[in-house]
């Protein structure tokens, strides 16, 4: 009984929020809460935690359970200390081994599975990034469980909400698996905050099966950006086919983005035509963003594109076609030639 009381306090806040109707159902929840134990896989980029991992921690936090962070790679003492300050994390498992630096699923998945089995975790969270998308299905297969991909909300420890059909429908999914392997949509959960003191957090060495990977990392070519990063920017200026060429894209879009202090995005049409780098693509097949302001220039608003940006707070659009579908979702629209209006807007914003 003492044990039950101790661990159930974690669930109490969650319960109050949900304002459960009957005592019976709240008791049921108390008991089920006791067994929840979450592991958040923390992704590193250049020795720093990526933003989407902080969102994954927030998602784990919604279960009202204890959260263990998981970090593997070389030179991980700094990121481990950083992770120890994340609100909600009680323990961090670290594996110091440079084999894991590139996040190859072939050796990272067995590593993760060994530590999941040892720690008895019930919920495994990672961001729905390239890393998470590559790693987590392999983890799920090794555990023989289904994966719950790209979730945007959590109903309870078994029930999750995720967009399907390019965001044209929102499905509520119940999992019957013992272990839930989950990837989280970064824009759906605000990043977990840091606390000043992280000293109470236990940092522990994990088990390292040190599996071989039949796949080796060769090289990478990442776009160098001196503007805010697309995934995390509070404002995004995005250009489409209406820009007509790479030169015009750079001439019209970049100064407007700078005037707003915004990141630059692009539609698939603009990327396919070579106007912008494919890392800038917003849409179902590119990045999903949800900034405060999403400013569309010369974008018609195909469902492929809308899937990547329709959760933005404010959508604004400039397009010469008054019937373009983008105007059906835009909070503010301007019908006109972007080559006249955008430079004017850039100039007036600069003042």
């Amino acid at each position, binding site marked *: 009984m003492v044990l039950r009381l101790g661990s159930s306090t974690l669930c109490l806040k969650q319960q109050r929020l949900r304002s459960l109707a009957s005592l019976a159902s709240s008791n049921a929840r108390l008991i089920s809460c006791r067994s929840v134990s979450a592991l958040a896989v923390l992704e590193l980029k250049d020795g720093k935690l990526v933003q989407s991992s902080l969102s994954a921690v927030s998602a784990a936090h919604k279960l009202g359970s204890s959260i263990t962070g998981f970090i593997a790679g070389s030179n991980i003492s700094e990121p481990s200390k950083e992770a120890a300050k994340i609100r909600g994390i009680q323990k961090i498992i670290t594996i110091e081994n440079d084999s894991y630096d590139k996040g190859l699923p072939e050796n990272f998945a067995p590593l993760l599975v060994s530590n999941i089995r040892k720690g008895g975790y019930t919920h495994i969270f990672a961001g729905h990034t390239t890393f998470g*998308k590559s790693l987590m299905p392999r983890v799920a*297969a090794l555990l023989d469980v289904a994966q719950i991909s790209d979730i945007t909300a959590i109903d309870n420890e078994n029930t999750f909400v995720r967009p399907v059909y390019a965001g044209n429908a929102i499905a509520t999914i119940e999992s019957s698996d013992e272990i839930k392997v989950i990837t989280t949509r970064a824009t759906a959960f605000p990043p977990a905050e840091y606390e000043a003191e992280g000293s109470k957090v236990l940092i522990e060495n994990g088990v390292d099966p040190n599996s071989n990977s039949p796949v080796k990392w060769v090289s990478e070519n990442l776009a160098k950006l001196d503007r805010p990063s697309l995934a995390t920017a509070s404002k995004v200026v995005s250009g489409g086919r209406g820009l007509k060429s790479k030169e015009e894209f750079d001439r019209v879009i970049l100064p407007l983005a700078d005037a707003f202090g915004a990141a630059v995005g692009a539609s698939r049409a603009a990327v396919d035509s070579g106007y912008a780098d494919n890392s800038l693509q917003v849409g179902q097949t590119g990045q999903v963003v949800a900034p405060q302001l999403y400013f569309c220039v010369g974008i018609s608003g195909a469902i492929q594109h809308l899937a990547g940006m329709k959760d933005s707070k404010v959508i604004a659009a400039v397009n010469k076609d008054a019937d373009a579908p983008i105007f059906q979702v835009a909070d503010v629209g301007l019908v006109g030639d972007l080559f006249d209006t955008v430079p004017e807007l850039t100039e007036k914003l600069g003042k």
Partner: protein
Amino acid sequence: MTALRILVPVKRVIDYAVKPRVNPTQTAIITAGVKHSLNPFDEISVEEAVRLRERHTKSPSASNPKVEEIIAFTVGPPKSMDVLKTAMAMGADRSIFVEVPEGEQPESLGVAKLLAKIVDRENISLVLAGKQSIDSDAHCVGGMLGGFLGWGFAGQASKISFEESGACTVEKEVDGGTEVVKGSLPMVITADLRLNEPRYASLQNIMKAKKKRVDKLTPEELGVDLRRRLVTKKVVEPAARKGGGKVSDVDGMIQRLRELGAI
């Protein structure tokens, strides 16, 4: 090196240009009477398999290995036969079809298990799948299959090359750019949008595809339990945005953005 035996898993999905509608009971998407087609990412993987064969035909070498056979696979309701015909019209040699009752599309875990069995039966050395299907958007089958087989996995491929015998170099789309990995065969690779531009099947090839072999198998024959672990409790339309607030000039735009607190 030995010749490649390629498996291309394909899926019949609601056509990408159709806006899906939720049924009145909010339990699923309406699929009856809606145009379906081959999942766009699977089209790309079929195309890549066919191009690999053509590369060898034009100039055989270690970097253009021989493609012995291309087998298309699908699991789905009876109408899924359509997408196998499309894959064979594009150049797949034959097909394997696991038929399930209408409305019982298995989830990624079950599909990956079926594929692992097919890989064994058909002595496959390369699986080329699409990175995700545009209906469930789960992005799981390729990665899970790699796990079940213990093979190397390269997801979101934008370029596939064979520089030397038995090794495959894959350029992948990653957050912020591209990454290159090199793996030894056998391997599972999933196709991203930029891998290639799929061909249209010619009328002649569509006619030829009708004569190609389709083997039907059941999940029981393959020893796979397709019972779902994930149950959809509810499907709703996303909250609609109400647009239409147009302004007449740039000053109006700036003023409105200020009112909305966006700047």
